[in-house]
């Protein structure tokens, strides 16, 4: 992956991040490789990183990746998901799908033999999500319509009635 390349030489794999101060005085994080780190005098020449340090660096890179993976609907990051152990909305599952599968395998391991067995095998919903959504929207609009009529705001009532008709048409199409 490109983001794992050293941001100084753009050739080697970055193994650590360092904090630099740019011209405007802002602190920025820069990922660099072992060679560039040595050049910068961060690592003493001739001395390689020990395993602990490498692990720490890798963990940090992973953490950064998790923090940057964000659900577009509820803005929960994968990092936060792991921290709280909870999803923020039904779109998180799409946003995190790739990382989610190994995660689910780990926590939902039974004595299953085959890998694909982590997927859902149970009952399914019968009416489909779109239909369900339309139904709940229509219900909401009908409530608003009632309120508008009660308040004698007939202009708004007419508008809402049109919206209901539109949704009901959509619903009918959905049935076919």
């Amino acid at each position, binding site marked *: 992956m490109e983001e794992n390349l050293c941001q100084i030489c753009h050739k080697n794999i970055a193994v650590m991040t360092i904090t630099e101060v740019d011209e405007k005085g802002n602190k920025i994080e820069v990922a660099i490789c072992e060679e560039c780190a040595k050049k910068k005098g961060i690592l003493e020449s001739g001395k390689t990183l020990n395993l602990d340090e490498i692990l720490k660096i890798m963990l940090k890179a992973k953490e950064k990746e998790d923090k940057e993976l964000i659900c577009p609907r509820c803005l929960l990051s994968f990092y936060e998901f792991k921290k709280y152990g909870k*999803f923020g909305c*039904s779109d998180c*599952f799409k946003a995190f799908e790739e990382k989610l599968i190994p995660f*689910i395998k780990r926590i939902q391991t039974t004595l299953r033999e085959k890998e694909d067995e982590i997927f859902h095998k149970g009952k399914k919903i*019968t009416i489909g999500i779109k239909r*369900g*959504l339309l139904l*709940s929207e229509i219900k909401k609009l009908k409530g608003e319509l009632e309120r508008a009529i009660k308040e004698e705001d007939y202009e708004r009532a007419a508008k809402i009635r049109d919206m209901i008709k539109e949704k009901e048409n959509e619903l009918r199409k959905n049935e076919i």
Partner: protein
Amino acid sequence: MRFNKILLPGFLREIGKEGDVCISSRIRFARNLENHLFLLKASPKEQEEVIEEIKEVVDKLGGFEFYPEKEFTELFLNFLLERHLISPDFVLSKNRRGLFVDKEEKVSIMINEEDHLRLQIIEAGFCLDEIFVKINELDDRLEKELPYAFSEKFGFLTACPTNLGTGMRASVMLHLPGLLLTNEIEKAIKAARSIGFLVRGIYGEGTKTIGSYFQISNQFTIGMKEEEIIESTKNLVTEIINYERKARDYLLKNLKKEIEDRVWRAYGILTNARLLSSEEAINLLSTLRLGVCLEIIDKVSLLTINILTLLVKRANLMFYLRKKDLTEEERDYERALLVKKFLKRKNE
């Protein structure tokens, strides 16, 4: 509060199948709505909307009483928890909550616990198949009116990944004094864990138990059909029930005098004590229960013992007596009186 009129939850109105060991069976489904953020992200306003939307649908089904957030005093919540109508997480939740309970107190629908919806049915004895049919039916009816969050891959989308897929947890409450007294319980717990089931002591902390009560439930929820989960739960529970009965037989054959002594001492204390803590009462009632099952004593019925085991608990005691501000000492006194009254009223 409307609960004052109701004496007993459904699972305590009869002794069910395998009632000598199995107190109750329960199944719960976790569901969320597609059109709302889950509770981690939902604002209080959105949480109210979830309650409104679900309430409208459940009201239409009929047969349920609704309890809104403002009725959830500490005492009322614990009253419901002791009756297994809500979960410990529902008590602790900081969300805006709502609760539906049916008239028989078998079906409950928690709104905004960890998921938007938690459906649950609890009944007496070992009856997971019957409960599954009922809860599935209820779920189907709700699904026609509510946009459930669902994906082909992950099934019913739940807030916590441990519930993904079916969103189903099947559990049974077992009374296992035989396995505890013969020190076989650890073996049973280990065996259950190794095949993907959780065993935990009830009323105590963690695996500890008060009164030898244990709950067994499936740990995994995805990758299997609901029926398969029910089937494997049933198989395991059947084995544990047989294991418990064998342990009881062993006790009766090899330690008859000791067991008889324990049972009659328990009866003696329960019918004569002037002060009883709830823990002591539950433990003694548990010993008495074993005595009834082994036909050592016939002065009291199993059902009476099951009922008393609920009524001696703090919140239910106060609700039952309609004295909601008793101190701990007063409760110990009232509890002893209540137990004595019930036990002297043979096979009521």
